[in-house]
């Protein structure tokens, strides 16, 4: 990051640390169920306490995603969502005073043009990009573009990552480290994997970056438990399911429950 500047992501983590709580990060695919409705949904999430929106870029082959998100992105694609729709949602979040990062599989970014995407994302007020299938070995063009545009490149670590690999990933990451709580795909689980605390502990020994935990989180109680040891809680499929079953009201309700959860560890 350029000296003296601080991304929305970094600010969000600093603010939460100041309040002795963790950051609540909520995912929704752009264009689900339509572009305008997805904007309403993410603004609802912000209004009910989500600190940072992870705007999903719908992709035809989402091999890290379980059935709930697969179904949602296929609806979004059928409804005509594109990379431009993602930028539109990011812009709406910025206009609303919110913060966002984009989550995208790699091919749509490469196809759009990596530098062009970075420039347009910054212009719309986006703060970074999470790349679930981009290994750091293949990420040089993206890291270069992110540095030029002052965006946060956010990479994932997994329970199977070695310490040396976590170090290498942390060196390329800005904003926060996304710790995948379990070996698996996205989707709500009854219990957040017991591998998560150990992974977060390992990451902490190797970097000073904030660590957020995702995969399988769906309830306020789970969010509270993760807040005990992590800097951020990422919720995806549960928001998508809420949108599917109860629309804006259910999404707002879930956001409020989770926002309370990330504050529950207050002394």
């Amino acid at each position: 990051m350029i000296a003296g500047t601080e991304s929305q992501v970094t600010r969000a983590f600093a603010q939460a640390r100041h309040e002795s709580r963790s950051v609540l990060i909520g995912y929704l695919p752009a264009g689900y169920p339509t572009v305008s409705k997805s904007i309403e949904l993410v603004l609802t999430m912000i209004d009910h306490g989500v600190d940072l929106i992870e705007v999903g870029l719908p992709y035809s082959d989402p091999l890290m995603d379980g059935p709930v998100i697969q179904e949602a992105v296929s609806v979004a694609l059928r409804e005509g969502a594109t990379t431009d729709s993602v930028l539109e949602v990011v812009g709406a979040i910025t206009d609303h005073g919110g913060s966002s990062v984009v989550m995208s599989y790699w091919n749509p970014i490469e196809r759009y043009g990596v530098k062009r995407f970075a420039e347009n994302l910054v212009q719309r007020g986006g703060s970074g990009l999470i790349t679930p299938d981009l290994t750091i070995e293949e990420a040089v063009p993206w890291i270069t573009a992110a540095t030029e545009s002052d965006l946060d490149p956010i990479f994932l670590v997994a329970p199977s990552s070695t310490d040396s690999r976590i170090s290498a990933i942390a060196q390329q990451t800005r904003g926060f480290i996304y710790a995948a709580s379990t070996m698996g795909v996205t989707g709500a689980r009854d219990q957040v994997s017991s591998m998560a605390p150990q992974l977060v502990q390992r990451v902490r020994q190797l970097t000073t970056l904030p660590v957020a935990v995702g995969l399988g989180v769906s309830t306020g109680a789970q969010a509270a438990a993760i807040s005990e040891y992590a800097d951020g809680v990422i919720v995806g499929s549960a928001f998508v399911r809420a949108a599917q079953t109860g629309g804006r009201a259910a999404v707002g309700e879930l956001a409020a429950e989770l926002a309370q959860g990330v504050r529950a560890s207050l002394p």
Partner: protein
Amino acid sequence: MTTAENLAWSENSVQLPGHFGPYGGRFVPEALTSALDELDAAFRLATSEPAFRQQLADLERDYTGRPSPLTRALRFADYCNGARVYLKREDLNHTGSHKINNVLGQALLTKRMGKSRVIAETGAGQHGVATATAAALLGLECTVYMGEEDTRRQALNVARMKLLGAEVVPVTAGSKTLKDAINEAMRDWVSSVDQTHYVLGTVTGPAPFPEMVRYFHSVIGREAREQILAVEGRLPDAVAACVGGGSNAMGLFSAFLDDLGVSLRGYEAGGDGVETGRHAARFAAGSPGVLHGARTYVMQDEWGQTISSHSISAGLDYPGVGPEHAWLHDTGRAIYEPVNDAEAMTAFSLLSRTEGIIPAIETAHGLAGAMRLGAELGPESIIIVNLSGRGDKDVATAARWFGIDLGDVVSAELAEGR
């Protein structure tokens, strides 16, 4: 940075292992990185050991039935401008296709890595059958993912896999074909990687798969080269194969890469015709992109979304292609052309009637290529076609194509396929 700039970066600044020029690499969830590293190490160690190579060679001889013959196709040659056409008979391998070569190698590696379960994707079912076979032989648990559409058109192979003790999971997402079966297999693997090896069936996917699968199929090319030298006293003018992911082609090509006088020819599925948009012609109508873990040629729209492929052949019905083929294409070392459904089915029928060999419909695309090659290279030319698989599995599809009434001969389930 545009795709072109990415390609330039990938090609020039770092020549990472697992790349073919700018293609290949690893585009996978971090959760799979350590498993791919483990696989890479196991592959390199095993293949450096004479004992492992001997174990594999013994299985190839005693179980697969290698070497596979090189058969002169005298009557089929009449339809290839009289060229000297040879068929590399991978259809005579145990399980009926080249797929067993790769599967035996990977199954042995699975045991060496101490894993107890294998998963696989399959399109035509040949790779699924081969994997189920190797799993039975070596006592591994086996799950095969297959697009629902493909389970219908290749019902016979579904039955074979079940008889061999494998679980077959029909995949209902997306286009319900090979692409979606790979997505689902990857999802399984991310969740089960501790105990499970993913036996990827072709020269696609993240490193080390393209290199490893080529290695296990390179026996095809080595044998063919030796056999043609023995019978003709010289190298062929061209070697030809169908190209879905491209494993049978890579196996054959691999022995001739440095023989610049041997033209390498790959035939991809033209479906209803490239101009109709209903095809699987990645080189004719695709562009460089990233799919299923590797940078390669991909059928994609302007936003980088994968476009569904179409082909009468389930095994070629895939919107990506092996990254080494992408590099051979760009460098001009190999030439790739689309073959339409109709042209492939003509070749299917001709080979059946002139040589008494019913080929797989995938293979028929390569045979159609040989007919073109004969016209191009002349009657004195020597052409080797990889007869990558036999056509038993395609009887229902072919019967429908040629209007043969299956009546009571084949079960209703077989006949009801698309």
